[in-house]
């Protein structure tokens, strides 16, 4: 746009109308003003149309319907819910289901992805080829096809009478996966507390060991003490609490299993589908991260006699995590968004319930707006949390 400044003579523009019209500043402002007016006018036009159309079809507007009775049932709920509750609560149930399946999916996909990623860079040729094959297959088949596939597989399992028996305690049927859980006991709550205490103590212990190392140069191996704290404390509480061993085991009663815990086939299909799909991408991210550490650094670390575990812990991982965490964040966000295909297998997530609400009330605009806003919020919160973690692992310039 340099030719727009031709009006400048000897550094001082003559303030005529022509010069003002042709000046860069004026043009920039004018172009943007036109753009803004066009966007606003288009928005107003669409808004007027939608109001007219909704009036013509006599569909209510606004979010008042969130207070009305939902009058439909939901198969799986985290919080108590019945058909007499409001649409607002139905949305909340859906949101909690979305969060449940996403959280489980993130854990599963991360574990699988890291295992396969490490296998990809293994010095064992066979293992790395198998891992490559896995990655190529799960990444290149549409996630929705994978979810539908697992859903059909689970639906075609035998019914409870001919359940697939996995070791006498775990049963796989077309109603889901049933497995034993410990019978409710007050000790469990204390064990949870002990677990939290163990984790905190382990972190504090590691901090202290590091500070000691940085001050004196003496290395204290905290690996086994940490494991002892995290596993041992809850176990100790369990023993002190009288070691309750009673299990609630699933048993065939009539047409279904009673007792134990059951994961529904809808949940399982969705979880397995989105986790396997994401694990392929995570494996590639992990591989790239591990390979980002220059070979010379690993050789140097070994040549000064570091144990392999320490080469991993102090040389490879700190550098790999810097490369891994940012793309991992977008994979997590993408997994959460992929959980929205739950509607296809009938798992009552946010979109599935939003869809039902949309059909019952006819208020498509509001129902979709609720879904979009909730997902935007989840995406933003996830990115913020992961960015916070990223700041922890990022290069600390001193």
């Amino acid at each position, binding site marked *: *746009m*340099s*030719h727009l400044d031709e009006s400048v003579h000897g550094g001082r523009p003559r303030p005529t109308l022509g010069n003002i019209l042709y000046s860069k500043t004026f043009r*920039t402002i004018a*172009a*943007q003003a036109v*753009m803004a007016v066009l*966007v606003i006018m288009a928005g107003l036009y669409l808004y007027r*149309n*939608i109001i*007219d*159309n909704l009036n*013509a079809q006599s569909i209510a507007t606004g979010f008042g319907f969130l207070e009305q009775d939902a009058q439909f049932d939901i198969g799986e709920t985290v919080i108590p819910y019945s058909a007499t509750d409001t649409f607002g609560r139905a949305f909340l149930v859906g949101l909690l289901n979305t969060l449940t399946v996403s959280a489980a999916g993130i854990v599963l996909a991360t574990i699988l992805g890291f295992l396969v990623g*490490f296998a990809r*860079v*293994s*010095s*064992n*040729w*066979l*293992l*790395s080829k*198998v891992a490559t094959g896995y990655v190529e297959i799960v990444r*290149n*088949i*549409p*996630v*929705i*096809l994978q979810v*539908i596939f697992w859903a*059909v*597989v689970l639906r*075609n399992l035998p019914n409870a009478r001919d359940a697939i028996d996995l070791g006498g305690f775990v049963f796989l049927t077309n109603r889901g996966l049933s497995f034993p859980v410990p019978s409710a006991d007050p000790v469990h709550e204390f064990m949870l507390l002990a677990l939290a205490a163990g984790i905190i103590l382990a972190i504090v212990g590691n901090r202290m060991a590091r500070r000691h190392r940085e001050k004196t140069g003496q290395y204290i191996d905290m690996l086994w003490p940490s494991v002892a704290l995290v596993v041992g404390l809850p176990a100790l509480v369990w023993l002190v609490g009288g070691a309750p061993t009673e299990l609630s085991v699933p048993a065939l009663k009539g047409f279904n299993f009673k007792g134990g815990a059951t994961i529904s086939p809808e949940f399982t299909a969705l979880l397995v589908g989105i986790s396997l799909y994401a694990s392929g991408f995570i494996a590639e991210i992990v591989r790239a991260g*591990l*390979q980002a550490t220059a070979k010379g650094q*690993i050789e140097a670390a*070994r040549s000064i006699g570091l*144990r*392999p575990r320490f*080469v*991993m812990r102090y040389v*490879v991982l700190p550098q790999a995590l810097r490369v891994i965490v940012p793309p991992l964040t977008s994979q997590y966000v993408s997994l959460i*968004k*992929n959980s*929205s*295909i739950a*509607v*296809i297998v009938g798992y009552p997530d946010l*979109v599935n319930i939003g*869809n039902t609400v*949309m059909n019952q009330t006819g208020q*498509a*605009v509001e129902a*979709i707006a609720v*879904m*979009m806003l909730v*997902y*935007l919020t989840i*995406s*933003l919160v996830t990115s913020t949390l992961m960015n916070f973690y990223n700041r922890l692992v990022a290069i600390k310039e001193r």
Partner: protein
Amino acid sequence: MTHSLSAPKVAATVHTMEEFDPDAKLSFGEWAGKNLFNSIPQTILTVVVAACLLRFFWFVLNWGILDAVFYTTDPDVCRAATGACWAVIAEKHRPMLFGLYPYDQQWRLVVMMVIYLITVVVSLTPRFWNLKLLVPFWIVSVTSIFVMMFGGVFGMPFVPSTDWGGLPLTMILFSGTVLIGMPVAVLLALGRRSPLPVAKGFSVVFIEALRGVPLITILFVAVNVFPLFLPAGVEVNKLLRVVIGIAIFFACYQAEVIRGGLQAIPKGQYEAAASLNLTYWQTTTRIILPQALRISLPAITNHIIAAMKNTSFVIIIGLFDILTATTAVMQDPLWRRYYIEAYLFVAAIYLFFGYSLSLYARQVEKWINTGRI
């Protein structure tokens, strides 16, 4: 990667400088010793993995080939067999591949797919990259594709787009997404890098808002909300609305990739263009974009492949693409037991097209690196 991250290896034999030749060809025994059996844990790992793999391939061989039924029209024959029933594909391939399209007119879809594939192959071959040649070719091929799909001329009955389905629909969704999405993506990326605050702000909000929501909600908007935005009496074809929805979603991701390419262009390029007195659009289309698109090509192809996979989301709004058609066909009580074979067939189609695209992308990168394009 032959380098181990896991175990320290003290070299068993010490090479002198003369002996050591990193490029020397290894015999199979040496290679296996180095990559499969170089320590006891590695050997155990190799044996375990090999055993699992053999078991798996043994099962695939028995189930998929030896005990399988390849052709029959009688589902009872499949029921008697212990292996796969590939006959389900022979029996059901027409509704799976062509969906709800009128049965006696499905030859038109075969013609359409042939034209489509020829068009794609020609358009992707550098020898034909000459607009004087390509533009008339595109006009002819796109017209004939739509003539074949819609009909209504030359004695072919009219078929409304609501009856389109199967693989041709997947192809149309995918091409529509990329053809509409790429220009929008470039505009959004330029907008985000624009010095004009209004253009920049609009692009940032648009891109970030759409990237934060799932594709399904955008499809819901396209199907349920978009008609409400139009004045009474005006209607836009559902298929078109869906294509535009997927395309805009695709464009938001692609815009971020292209922005990465734009950011990689050194400032000197802009300054050189300004010193030649080029205008903004001249600079953009002749200097900046050609370089930026080349730089971001690998990531662009990744998103194009993802766009192909994402077309399968239309099952949720009831468009009959190949996945929806297959799911519907598999409701047939006689053949529904063989859903695994049917879905493997669909997965193989997606894998084939995805793999072809990534092979082509690798070729283009090679052309770029050798300065051919």
